[in-house]
Structure formats: C-alpha cells, structure tokens
C-alpha cells in the first residue's frame, strides 16, 4: 500500500515537473519576420539566449495581432510574447485578450531613471511595452528633382512643381492625415479636423487632386521598389524600408521628415501565455536601454526610451551614425505627429469602407 502511494506520488511529481522543466527552457515568440524580425534576433534573442539559456522559438506572422485573437478565443495559447502595433495592443487589452505587464519589472534607464520617466509618452500601457517607433514618411528620388527638392506634405500634392507619379499605402489611415496637412491644417489640429464630417470631406477632396497619379501599395516592400524602378518619383512609405534601400543598395532616396506620422510597436503577452516567467524576463531584458539602442542600429526604427538615444551608435557594419535617420531623433520628432490611436480604432471600419468606395469609384 505504502509502495503504491509512493509510486503514485512520484509519477505525479514527474508529470508536474516535466512541463515545468520544459517551460523553463523555451519561450515562444510571435514576430513579424523580415528585416524587422532579424533586428530582434540580433539585438534581443541571441543575447537573451546566451545570458539565460532559455531557448527562443520564433514564429512569424503577417500581423501577430491576428493569431493572438484566434489563439485566445480558441483557448489554445501557444505564444508567450508577441510584437504588435500600438493600436492593436490597446484594442486587445480592452477586450481582455492580453495579460497586464507591471512596469516595475522593467530595467531602469541608462542614468538610473525609473521606467515611467524614461519611456516616451504612451510607450507603457497596462498591457504593452514599446520597443520601437516607426513612421510613415515622404521620400523622393533625388535624381528626379535636380533643382528644388520636396520639403513637406504640400509638395507631395504639387504635381506641377514636382511631376511624376506617387505611391501611397492602399488604406485610409495615414493618407487622410497627410492630405489635411498638405491642405494647410496645422499638424496638432489634424485629428480634431478629421473628427468632423467636413474634415473627412476636406481630406478626400485633397486626395482627389492626385488620385490619377497614385500607385497604391499593399506590401511594405513595394514603395522602395517602385522608386527604384522609376515608376514613381515620390513615395509615402515606412521610413525603415526607404532607409534600407538607400543605405544597403545605395539608392538616391531622400527622406522628408516634415509631416512624418509615427506609431509604436512593442511587446504584449497573450492571455494565458504558457511560459509567463520567461516571457516577463525576456520583456525586461529586451527593453533595457542598451538592447533598444542595439536594435535601432540594425533597422532605422527609433527606441522609445529617452536614455537610449545617446547609446545609439553607427548603422550596423558602417561608419554612418544612425541617430539622424531615426523618427525619434529630437529634430525629426518635432516635425511630425503621433498617429491618434483612439481616432483610428473608432473610425477605421467606417473610413476604410469610404476609402475603398472612393478608390473604386
């Protein structure tokens, strides 16, 4: 009888210890892939694996927010940490799809600041820790405009002074803001104007002026390709893509920071993540100022911590300093606006329908 009880107890122990041991060793990361995922590999994943011995299993998704929703709703969560856009993080947090993350687990700033002081506004929310700031910027092919250079949103819409086709993202977001800024609305009033029906009409009326000269892009890789092929002379695209083409392929592309619209990406934990401890450890490790700065050297997305800026060195493998090419460089930051999350969560569906109707009509 005693023997049997011991046997049962030890089996139970093995059964309990098995998954616990496995949990200690792996971490499932849901990422975007591409050059962005690679920057995470270099700056976060490999150093983390070396330091802690936890093995990181990365899976890539088109937009990791979509599988999270599916996983949590199906009650089968396999990811521990995921990289998502700010808007998706807040939306999913409100819907109870994410675990809360206590900011006190995060590392202090480079000069000992608390995380709350060190992270820029909005980079820390209940369920989200920011890792980088990316932005939609205007870019042009320098060889196409030998004399005057485009300097802001108004020039993007000026087909007479700056001839040639444009390329813009196929969607309402970013484009409506740009149209209003080009139409003379002050950057800090863009969302106020866009919240009124007249403001939306005004934005579409401005977009109509270049509608016939726009090639709409769907995948982030398209705009640099269209610029390189000479199909378009100006693009409204993600800054990282343009920078990569200019840097690694020596394309004559210039970025205009005036009118940039920036957004954040960062880590979230899906509700019911299987390896909670490892996930929190990873989030704290990767958002330390040094790691964020290291990631920014790989890809031109800015670190959302104030004390990281001074740690950013040269573009990986070159002698060019990275800081001037980041959306969060102080002189670039003041030329742009932050994308308004609440506005887009409220109006995405409505304006997307209107945009598609407008596009097709």
């Amino acid at each position, binding site marked *: 009888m005693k023997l049997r009880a011991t046997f049962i107890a030890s089996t139970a122990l093995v059964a309990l210890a098995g998954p616990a041991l496995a949990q200690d060793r792996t971490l499932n990361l849901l990422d975007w892939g591409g050059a962005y995922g690679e920057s995470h590999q270099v700056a976060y994943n490999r150093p983390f694996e070396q330091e802690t011995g936890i093995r990181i299993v990365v899976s890539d998704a088109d937009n990791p927010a979509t599988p999270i*929703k599916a996983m949590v709703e199906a009650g089968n969560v396999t990811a521990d940490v995921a990289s998502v856009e700010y808007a998706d993080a807040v939306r999913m947090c409100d*819907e109870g799809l994410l675990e809360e993350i206590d900011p006190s687990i995060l590392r202090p700033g480079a000069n000992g600041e608390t995380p709350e002081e060190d992270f820029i506004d909005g980079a820390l929310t209940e369920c989200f820790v920011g890792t980088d700031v990316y932005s939609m910027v205007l870019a042009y092919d320098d060889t196409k405009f030998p004399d005057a250079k485009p300097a802001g949103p108004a020039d993007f819409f000026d087909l007479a002074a700056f001839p040639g086709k444009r390329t813009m993202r196929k969607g309402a977001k970013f484009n409506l803001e740009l149209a209003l800024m080009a139409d003379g609305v002050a950057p800090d009033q863009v969302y106020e104007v866009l919240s009124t029906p007249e403001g939306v009409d005004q934005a579409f009326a401005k977009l109509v002026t270049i509608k016939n000269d726009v090639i709409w892009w*769907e995948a982030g890789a398209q705009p640099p390709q269209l610029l390189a092929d000479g199909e378009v002379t100006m693009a409204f695209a993600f800054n990282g893509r343009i920078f990569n083409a200019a840097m690694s392929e020596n394309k004559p592309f210039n970025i205009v920071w005036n009118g940039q619209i920036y957004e954040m990406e960062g880590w979230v934990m899906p509700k019911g993540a299987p390896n909670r401890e490892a996930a929190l450890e990873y989030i704290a490790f990767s958002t330390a100022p040094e790691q964020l700065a290291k990631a920014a050297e790989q890809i031109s997305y800015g670190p959302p911590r104030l004390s990281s800026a001074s740690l950013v060195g040269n573009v990986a493998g070159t002698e060019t300093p990275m800081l001037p090419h980041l959306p969060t460089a102080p002189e670039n930051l003041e030329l742009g606006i932050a994308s308004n999350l*609440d506005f887009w969560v409220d109006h995405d569906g409505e304006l997307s*329908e209107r945009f598609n109707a407008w596009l097709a009509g």
Partner: protein
Amino acid sequence: MATPLDPHAAIVAEASGLPPAAPLTTADGQPLARALNRSRRKARRQALLLVLPLLAFVVITFILPIGQMLHRSVYNPGFADNMPRISAWFAENPRGTDPDEAAWAALAADLTEAAEARTIGIVGTRMNYDVPGTRSLFTSTGRQVRGGLEPPYREALLEIDGKWASPELWAAMRTGATAYTANFYLASMDLTRDNDGNITEAPKERQVYGMLFMRTFWLSALITGMTFLLGFPVAHLLATLPTRKSNLLMILVLLPFWTSLLVRTTAWIVLLQQQGVVNDIMVWLGIIGDGQRLQMIYNQTGTIIAMTHILLPFMILPLYSVMRTINPSYVRAARSLGATSWTAFRRIYFPQTLPGLGAGALLVFILAVGYYITPALVGGSSGQLISNMIAMHMTETLNWSMAAALAALLLAGVLILYWVYDRLVGIDNLKLG
C-alpha cells in the same frame, strides 16, 4: 410467381423446375435475399471504415471551421453577453420606449461591471460596427466608472459624455442586445438600419460592396472567357501532336503552374509597368513615344492579364485530357461525308470537348472569384475584388463577423452559379482529368 423485378431469378426458378412461388434459399436454408444483404452490409461497413479517416479529416478541418465562420456572420454576442441587465431591459420594453431611470441604472451597472471585467472593449467594438465612433465612448466611460456611479444615473452618464443620449446609440444597443443579428449581412449589401429599425440604404459614399461583388463576378467571367480563348488551341495542339513533342510543350504549360504564385505576379509587374520590359520595347521600336508609356498594370488591365495567365493551366489540363480521348476518325468521317472543316469542328469535334471545357470553366471561375493576392498586388484602384475587402476585415479592422458575412454571400453566389451550371450543362458532363 417470380417478381418481375428479378428476371434472372425467374429464369433460374423455371430452369430448375422449382415451384415458382417458393423463395430462393442458400445451402443452409436461409432466404437468399437476406444472406446477400448481410454480406453486402459487411462490405459496406468495411468501405465506410476505409473512408472514415478522410471523412473525419474533412469534417474537422473543413466543415467545422467553415460552419463556425458562417455562424459568426449572424452571431455576435459581444454586447448581449457582457451587458446582461440593459439587454434584459430591451427584451422587456418594446421598440419606441424611451429609456427610463431603470434603463439608465441597468446601463450604469453593466458599464461598471464590464469595465472591471475588462470586457468593455468587446462591447464598444460591437457597437462601433453599427455606430462608428462609439468604441472610445465605451472605453473612456469605462475608465471613469470603475469606482461605481451615483444615482441619478442618467445625469451621471450624460455628465461623462453627452453622446449617451443619442437615439442612434440606443437603437444600436437594442440591436446588439440580441446576439443573433442580420446586420452584418445588411452591411454586406450596402444596407443599414435607421433609428426605428427599418432597413434603408447605406450612405452613398460608403456603398462599396455591391459594386465589388458585381465587379468580381464580371471579371471572373471575363477571365474564364480569356482562358478558354487562349487555352483551347493550346490544348488541341497538345492533344494532337506526337507524344514526344507534346510532352515538351506540356512542360511549358506545367512549369509556370509549378512556379510560386507570388513570383509569377511579380514577373508580370516587371514586364508590364511603365518603366517595364514591354513599354521599353515599344518605345525602342518607336511604336509609342517616351512620354506616352502605357499604363498596363495597377489597374483592371493588369489584373485581367496576370490572372488569365495564372489560371490558364486550370483550363488547359482538363481540356487536354478530354481531347486526348476524342477519336480522330469521327472528324475524318464527317469530312469524307462532305462537311467543311469548320462544320466538322463545330458539329463533331467541339461538342465532344464540352465535358473538359465545363470542368475547366468551373475551376477557373471559382478560383478567380476567390482570388486575393494577385489583385492586391497588381490591381491598383480599379482591379480590387471582394476578396480584398474580406482580407481587410480579417486582418485590419478585425471585424470577423463582417468578413464572414461577405464570404458567405460570395459562397452563396458561387453555389447559385453552380446550380445554374448544373441546370444548363449538367454536372455529370464534367470531366476533371
């Protein structure tokens, strides 16, 4: 008497001289029919066991998810589940009742509870589908009522945000109070409900789905026609050439078929864009000037060209397999009886290719209706199809109920066409290979 249904038994009975009324039995005296049935049943059971894995696979991986998705198009419990008290109030009070203090109290209690349970976002998202701009109303109110509200609730809520008095919002909440709704189907057909619950047209500037459905079906039909025109001669050539040459040609048909869809689409971009190969050659030949380069991609033309090319093998292969079996002596016989080559083709050869043509046309059309990646990349603004909107609702706005409703309508459209096809051509006349 032997049954007239079983002439064979009658012959056996007559030949053996048995009295015709006696039932046939096996050697151990059981009625033959029952023994036969039993052995058949066993065979049937074995056959069922053999197909069971496939059946289970199809049910689990195909029918269940699709069923669940379709269910989602009419079922969205986001409001009803998380706001039980106000939903109950709506159930008790008919449409047209002005919200009384009991309603406001129910609303306040539900909001507080949903805010604490972190489900307020789900409620807001559900309402935002019907009244754009209300999601933040729910989440921001939720943040302020976590500590609870003091009566009178109407004034308390209106103080937080005046939008709570909007009749449009109350009408939408009444619809949301029942989890089953037809609203997503209405929205998919460019319809909406007014404050009294009557179905009306959606605002002009938001009407997009009807036009896209029409365009999807029209473009798919056009592409099916194009693949027929281009594929028929190729299939005929493949079927009539000596085997060695036709095998070589077959590789040319199959090679693009085996190449990645994305690669083929990108190749068309390289060829057709304004600074692309085709335009360069035309400028070099002097057909067009450098300033008049043709816009052949990022519009409907690009979508038609790229999709026709990509779907061509689906037309050629069924046609080829049918054409190979057509005996050439029929056409020869027609010619020897005085038919012109056109008449022989029209009256003798072409009708025999119909099963292959039917299969190819059905395959190409159904694939084209659901095509997504090619129109997304080369379609520009005028080559967008309904699948692009489904993808947008799946991945961007995360309105899966809307995506499900659009997909269900698309499926219904295809099924209706399939039925029409069955009526006109007959599904038995189909030969897939």
